[in-house]
């Protein structure tokens, strides 16, 4: 028997998006936050560089310029109504975090300091602008800590180390979740009027990634298995500066402070790819440039398979003071001193633009026609509003999680306070119980470790920065085989207490689903846009493809695709030059 808890609203995930939503919902209705990690372990804490808002504390700026950059950065796939909301609310959101106590770096006058970041410009692309508010290179850490502090202050109820496995639907209404308590192996039902998912990304499907081991797409995975669609799954961002071999991120803030990318010949190759803003071009462009440099034999190192991030011309005091963590990462993990030599870097799988489709209040869409799922919300990296379109600009995710976490929290509380708790069917948890029993009872002849590492290698080789129909077909075939092998695995650990093998097993299942959704969506899109680059279709094709993909799992065979028009606004698509 599962324990049953009743709440008005339940939030799944305690990263920036979940905690920001919890502060709003918790003030209004009875709220619980359910998270597989202790809140402060969430990957928001790894975010480094900053959060953008046109405060104009250091240089002239306007939220409308920020909106333009976001739309252009998205390769015109972002919904412009949502972008306007985000960029307009950015200023108030940053000021609000400051009032909660967030220790931003300061200007000499004591105002919040700002710095440059990729793709953020003055007056529609004229030159880079200082728009990113930051706290050294630990901005995400400070946001996560500050939000957690506030949640403690207001007594938000947490269920830490509870792993959510299922969404409860009653007549098309979302009515709660089923969670597995990792410490005891018990199931819990959270019966609720409204649920918000804020479960983060799924970069762990790639071999080289800046993402945590725990970023496995559980939230979108649960949604997908319920037969609800996922949006724009083909768009996955690769960040240009991950530590060689490891993928650990070196923030774009390094280039914002003046670092330069060089190839084996010492050439500043970005001058060729983005003559105006060079190293500060958006990530899709820089990552692609790096792949081309390596492909054409200009990579550095004995195997010519990496590039160099050169910080040696940046003032050492700036490096030590404003980029202390990333300097330490290079020293600790590669034994390289960035003050003295170039740091070996490669593109690293970083950010999921796609995810659970929502409207601007975080409410989840049931289909590409825009129908809504009553009582169900999503926010943060697991969601797709869409403000990032085909390519997210740096610093816009921390902004996204705060703006749409807040909006989602308010909307779910309003819904919960005007609706009744729906009666759950008997034996709500039965299907989850059967599933868990089956996992522990399989033939066990295949190794989950091999399946996971093969998936990561295949995705990196065939579905990352450069794609073709052929490579994607091969990836899909590989995923099919892995999915089949996965059915022949088994969780061998029988202990109920902290059975982390069981948790990892289920996470791998979600990763396989996310990989399938990504590759099927990518294969269908026969154009290049933002983070999705097809060597066999190198042009963007607005006549055909200025639309969002919606992918839905069906009982038999490959998932199905449908499309939804982009919400246009002030900016008409133009060629994307920097």
């Amino acid at each position: 028997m599962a324990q049953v808890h009743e709440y008005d609203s339940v939030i799944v995930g305690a990263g920036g998006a979940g905690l920001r939503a919890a502060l709003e919902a918790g003030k209004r209705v009875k709220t619980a936050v359910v998270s597989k990690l202790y809140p402060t372990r969430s990957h928001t804490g790894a975010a480094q560089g900053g959060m953008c808002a046109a405060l104009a504390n250091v240089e002239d700026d306007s939220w409308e310029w920020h909106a333009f950059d976001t739309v252009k950065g998205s390769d015109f796939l972002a919904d412009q109504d949502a972008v306007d909301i985000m960029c307009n609310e950015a200023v108030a959101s940053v000021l609000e975090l400051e009032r909660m106590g967030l220790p931003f770096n300061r200007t000499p006058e004591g105002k919040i300091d700002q710095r440059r970041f990729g793709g953020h410009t003055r007056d529609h692309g004229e030159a880079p602008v200082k728009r990113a508010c930051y706290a050294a290179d630990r901005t995400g850490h400070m946001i996560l800590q500050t939000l957690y502090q506030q949640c403690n202050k207001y007594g938000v109820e947490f269920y830490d180390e509870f792993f959510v496995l299922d969404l409860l639907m009653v007549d098309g209404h979302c009515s709660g979740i089923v969670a597995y308590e990792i410490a005891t192996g018990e199931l819990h039902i959270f019966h609720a009027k409204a649920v918000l998912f804020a479960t983060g990304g799924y970069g762990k499907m790639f071999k080289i990634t800046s993402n945590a081991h725990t970023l496995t797409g559980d939230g979108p995975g649960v949604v997908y298995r319920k037969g609800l669609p996922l949006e724009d799954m083909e768009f996955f961002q690769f960040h240009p500066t991950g530590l060689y071999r490891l993928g650990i991120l070196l923030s774009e803030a390094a280039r914002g402070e003046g670092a330069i990318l060089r190839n084996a010949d010492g050439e500043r190759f970005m001058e060729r790819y983005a003559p105006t803003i060079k190293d500060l071009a958006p990530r899709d462009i820089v990552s692609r440039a790096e792949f081309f440099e390596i492909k054409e034999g200009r990579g550095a190192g004995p195997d010519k398979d990496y590039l160099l991030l050169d910080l040696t011309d940046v003032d050492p005091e700036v490096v030590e003071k404003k980029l202390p963590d990333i300097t330490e990462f290079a020293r600790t993990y590669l034994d390289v001193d960035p003050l003295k030599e170039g740091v070996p870097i490669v593109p690293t799988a970083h950010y999921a633009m796609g995810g659970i489709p929502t409207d601007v209040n975080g409410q989840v869409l049931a289909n590409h026609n825009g129908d809504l799922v009553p009582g169900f919300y999503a926010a943060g990296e697991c969601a797709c509003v869409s403000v990032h379109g085909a390519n997210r600009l740096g610093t816009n995710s921390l902004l996204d999680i705060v703006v749409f976490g807040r909006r989602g929290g308010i909307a779910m509380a309003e819904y919960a306070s005007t609706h009744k708790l729906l009666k759950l069917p008997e034996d709500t948890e039965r299907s989850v119980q059967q599933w868990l029993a089956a996992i522990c009872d399989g033939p066990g002849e295949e190794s989950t470790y091999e399946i996971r590492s093969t998936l990561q290698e295949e995705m990196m080789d065939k579905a990352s920065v450069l794609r073709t129909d052929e490579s994607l077909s091969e990836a899909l075939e590989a995923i099919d085989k892995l999915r089949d092998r996965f059915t022949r695995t088994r969780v061998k650990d029988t202990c109920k207490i902290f059975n982390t093998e069981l948790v990892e097993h289920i996470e791998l299942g979600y990763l396989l689903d996310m990989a399938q959704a990504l590759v099927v969506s990518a294969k269908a899109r026969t154009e290049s846009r933002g983070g999705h680059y097809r060597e066999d279709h190198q042009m963007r094709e607005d006549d055909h493809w200025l639309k969002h993909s919606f992918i839905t799992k069906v009982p038999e065979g490959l998932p199905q695709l449908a499309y939804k028009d982009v919400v246009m606004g002030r900016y008409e698509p133009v060629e994307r030059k920097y």
Partner: protein
Amino acid sequence: MDVKLRLLRFNPESDDKPHFENYEVEADPMDRLLDCLHLVKWQKDSSLALRRSCAHGVCGSDAMVVNGVNALACKVLIKDLEQPIVVEPIRGLPLIRDFIVDMEPFFAGYRAVKPWLIVDESQHEPERERLQSPKERERFDDTTKCILCAACTTSCPIFWSDEEYVGPAAIVNAHRFIFDSRDQGSRERLEILSQRDGVFKCRTAFNCTAACPRGIKVTQAIQEVKRAALFQSF
């Protein structure tokens, strides 16, 4: 290279007490200890239980005792460790399974010091940001780095023998607010910290400073909080 590991294992369903098991895995000298623990779990014994997430020293999940000293498994490299590498769970918190301990007493200590910005709510909210000079911001920079991994608290001999002591991490988080020019709650916090289980239990063993994976000068922060409590100066 071959890496020899000696891991303290404990399964609460089948073991009376913890015992050591030896393992050997193939790894690179530049690999992290966490990578080797994963190899044990993924290739040798899937029941090995540990917490981990970010794998680069910022989430604070994987504090362990490594060759006798507290460290994050994702922040120590194999090349820097003497073999066999002896790994044990952090001390002073109830052991649950293998490297997993009950973190609740630790977080209770943290919450006890009111680790959030306290301001006079009756005052009119400013429309822009509150001003804070770079110097004022610098004053508490060091203690903002804390990731609540518990490496400091569980290296403290006072904490081992007295679980009521709030411990170094809680004091670090109090310091972060006491010396923030915007905060108005120092008096309340120092009152809590001046009580029996508070800051004066510290005997400056310096273990905490050595253990901190973020390089926070923990003992210095504790001394500053003691002074603030004694002289009401902050």
